[in-house]
């Protein structure tokens, strides 16, 4: 009996931790959509790029990938900012469909360039001793430190973003511009550079997520699309534009996947997609948004 209960508790705990990874990859997507109204279909591929960059740097320097994060994250920020200035920003002027097509093209390009440059062999990142460390909660439940770190990273990134957005002058400008870009320009906000910083932050978080994905499992040039679907589902389930909703959405996905996987591994991913469809059908504004917020999100869009 206790063994039975422990198994399910274990599934829920592992699922929650897995959800942290989904939330980490999803928060950049949520930010990009919430502020700039861009559905970035290349977000997952940018995360995979982050993993490859981590691979190159950590192999070259012969250190675990964590050590190169201080190089990798600013690099990802710059890549995001430049992409926004040169590609995404200009595409926004041509209606809502143009950015979708541009990011789709970007996704295809990144995947094929990665394949040419790195072949389609699956790779893994050197996570050092952290990658294999684990600790025991009770007799039967063991938790990987790496999963705990990924979850903690998600919580830190999401709270950091939340604080930046709600407390700083940068965050005020970002929220004002998300509300009404035209009036933001009118009151003197420089919208293009502001959007570049937002895109930089989004790609930075994607790269961090990519590093965790590449350390926990393996990745190949085409891993981005699958990653994107989970991220997208976490955003929608949590409610678009709500960062804490994104964490909750990611955890809902992770728990579903883990608990269903406990019954039958073959249905685990299918169950996640079914949950997503059910939420879309029943509460299209997301599980964790209030009616008030949903109305405003509708008014914003």
């Amino acid at each position, binding site marked *: 009996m206790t063994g039975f209960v422990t198994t399910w508790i274990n599934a829920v705990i592992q699922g929650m931790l897995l959800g942290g990874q989904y939330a980490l990859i999803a928060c950049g997507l949520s930010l990009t959509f919430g502020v700039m109204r861009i559905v970035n279909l290349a977000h997952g591929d940018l995360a995979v790029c982050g993993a490859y960059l981590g691979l190159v740097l950590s192999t070259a320097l012969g250190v675990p990938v964590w050590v190169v994060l201080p190089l990798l994250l600013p690099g990802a920020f710059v890549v995001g900012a430049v992409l926004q200035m040169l590609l995404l920003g200009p595409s926004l002027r041509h209606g809502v469909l143009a950015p979708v097509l541009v990011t789709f093209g970007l996704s295809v390009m990144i995947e094929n360039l990665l394949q040419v440059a790195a072949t389609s062999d699956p790779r893994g990142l050197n996570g050092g001793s952290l990658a294999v460390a684990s600790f025991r909660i009770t007799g039967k439940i063991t938790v990987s430190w790496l999963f705990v770190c990924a979850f903690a990273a998600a919580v830190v990134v999401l709270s950091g973003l939340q604080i930046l957005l709600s407390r700083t002058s940068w965050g005020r400008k970002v929220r004002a511009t998300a*509300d*009404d870009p035209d*009036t933001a320009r*009118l*009151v*003197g906000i420089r919208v293009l550079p502001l959007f570049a910083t937002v895109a930089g932050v989004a790609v930075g978080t994607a790269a961090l997520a990519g590093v965790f994905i590449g350390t926990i499992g393996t990745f190949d040039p085409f891993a981005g699309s699958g990653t994107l679907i989970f991220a997208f589902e976490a955003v929608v389930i949590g409610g678009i534009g709500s960062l804490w909703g994104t964490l909750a959405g990611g955890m809902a996905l992770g728990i579903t996947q883990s608990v269903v996987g406990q019954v039958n591994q073959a249905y685990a991913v299918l169950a996640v997609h079914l949950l997503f469809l059910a939420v879309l059908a029943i509460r299209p504004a997301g599980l964790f948004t209030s009616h008030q917020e949903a109305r405003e999100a509708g008014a914003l869009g």
Partner: protein
Amino acid sequence: MTGANPASEGSGVPLLEVTGLNAFYGDFQALFDISASVPRGGALALVGANGAGKTTLLRTIAGVNRAASGSIRFSGTDLRTAPPHRRVSLGISLVPEGRKLFGSLTVEENILVGAAAAASDSWPLERIYGVFPMIASRRRQRAAVLSGGEQQAVAIARALAAAPSLLLLDEISLGLAPVVVESLYETLAELRSGGTTLVIVEQDLQRAMAACDDLVCLLEGRVALAAPVSSVSREQVVAAYFGQVPSGAP
């Protein structure tokens, strides 16, 4: 000759001078050869029927609409290529029609965002709350939940936070109770006596003429009448407003 330059920056040089301005709204030409000027410390009433081009003119001065040709000089500087944030930091602020507050931000956040490109720090929060005591008590509330009059006050406060020397006001009395409009105009008079130059777009002709020294009436994107308020009658303005030929013409 060089020595005369700073001295001539006095009352003689208009703060804002628009010359031969043409502007388009998409493919549609909204402004034709507009010329107007406002002296430093002055107040200009911009009147005309709906669609006459008043809002387009204000937005072109603020830089969010592009001028196709013509010049806009502010304090002697040519603004032709200046982006909106540059114009704000030079001292031009627009209170847009319909208030356009950032609804998910609090009152105070709206005002702080207005200071993003401020020309100077001469309008700190305390001074703004001094001018609009009614919004001081609501500073932590989201702008979307305020009444129309309060929202209009916040919109003006947001523009003031940029410490403008030229304040452009687009239809600030729209949809507000007369008593609220009265108090807003009292505030504008205070601002003006404090040295702020005003351009006011207003549907209420009487109020516009009472608040300003000069008047420009637009008709279908052209200047139909430009004169000091003291030298025109209400009837003449109404005639220009509707494009009627002045009496006495053949």
